[in-house]
């Protein structure tokens, strides 16, 4: 006969320790998940700014220094760190990432700065860095599996998994299932595409 009380106590202890470890990971994955999930409504990685203004066009025969001076003066961005001219464009670059581009009589000033925390959290969430983070993320995923499954059994309660437990577990399974059925799932919009041959995916 298995000692159920000791078994549940062991589950609880490991669940609690995994929970402690998972806090940091969960904050990163959940907050960046929220941020990335709404990527069509905002830029989860950067604060961006853009303004345009009109100036007298820079003459083609103006020297680079003169062209830069005119554009920077109009934009109010100070002395540029880099000047590049191509065709009708005068581009000024600044070390803080600001770009000023004059095309004819129009000047566009584009700036951006990374969002604190989310820029890094999203990078981790997307696993852009690859390498060791792949294994770290795997470990976290396994821990989440343990937290979910051990959570079912670690506290018996009056009725165990009957009634409220069963209803809530069923709801958690039913919601994604119903959504897949309702939306038609991944096959819904297959259309008339060709079947792609398998190739080695390149790193993005």
């Amino acid at each position, binding site marked *: 006969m298995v000692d159920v009380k000791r078994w549940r106590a062991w589950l609880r202890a490991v669940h609690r320790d995994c929970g402690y470890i998972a806090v940091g990971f969960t904050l990163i994955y959940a907050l960046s998940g929220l941020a*990335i999930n709404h*990527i*069509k*409504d*905002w*830029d*989860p*990685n*950067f604060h*961006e700014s*853009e303004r*345009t203004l009109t100036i007298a066009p820079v003459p083609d025969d103006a020297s680079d220094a003169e062209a830069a001076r005119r554009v920077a003066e109009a934009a109010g961005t100070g002395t540029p760190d*880099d000047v*590049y001219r*191509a*065709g*009708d*464009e005068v*581009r000024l*670059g600044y070390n803080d990432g600001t*770009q000023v*581009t004059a*095309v*004819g009589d*129009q000047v*566009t000033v*584009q700036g*951006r700065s990374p969002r604190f925390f989310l820029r890094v959290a*999203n990078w981790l969430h*997307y696993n*852009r860095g690859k390498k060791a983070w792949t294994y770290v993320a795997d470990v976290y995923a396994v821990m989440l599996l343990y937290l979910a499954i051990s959570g079912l059994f670690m506290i018996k309660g009056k009725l165990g998994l009957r009634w409220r437990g069963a209803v809530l577990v069923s709801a958690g399974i039913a919601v994604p299932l119903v959504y897949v059925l309702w939306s038609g799932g*991944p096959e819904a*919009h*297959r*259309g*008339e*595409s*060709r*079947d*792609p*041959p*398998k*190739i080695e*995916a*390149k*790193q*993005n």
Partner: protein
Amino acid sequence: MQNIRSRREFIKTAAAGTLLMAVGGALVRIAADDLTRAARAEKRADGRQRLPPGQRVIEYLKPMGGDEGDGDPRNFRLHVYGLVKKPLEFDYKELLKMPQVTKEADVHCVTGWTMLGGEWKGVQIAALADLVGVTGEARYVIFEAANGFTANTPIREATMDNALVTYRLNGKPFAREHGAPVRGLVPDLYFWKSAKWLTGIRFVARDEPGYWETRGYNNHGDPWKEERYG
């Protein structure tokens, strides 16, 4: 008993609050979406509805992420090669000296937004194809971009009149997150096919599904057929 009642009250309150927020959000979205309604009533010259199914109109391009390229026009090089007679590589200044076009085009993101009527300036991919002398065996065009990103399109769609190598939208250069200095534009396919931070255009005989196409997105990506996922 008190605990149960409290719990029930909490669940009821939480459910009511969620429902209220969902209904309120939906109403705001419906009320604010005049642009989408107007676009749905329009037709394109080819007879298709201007707004593909499942799309919602927004006014500005949304940055959709990606592993960014250099962004500096000084470092830009575009390699046009593959099944061609004369492969070509050119820089930003040389790109601006090529025959330029400005095309008005709508773009449709696979995530559901559409931006209407952008004025895109650049060089037609068809013109580049003529320049390098694409051979008769070429059937697909592979757009290559920074950090190994690729996107595949049938050559017919990549060389349509409105398919460009583009460096300006509505008279402005692209911000870095939108693919500066130069991106592809294939507006009649979902926008992920219009590769940002473009580095190469390769003409090939056999299809080569690209970055997103090998990660669950549709291989073709026709917005009017809602070819979103593979």
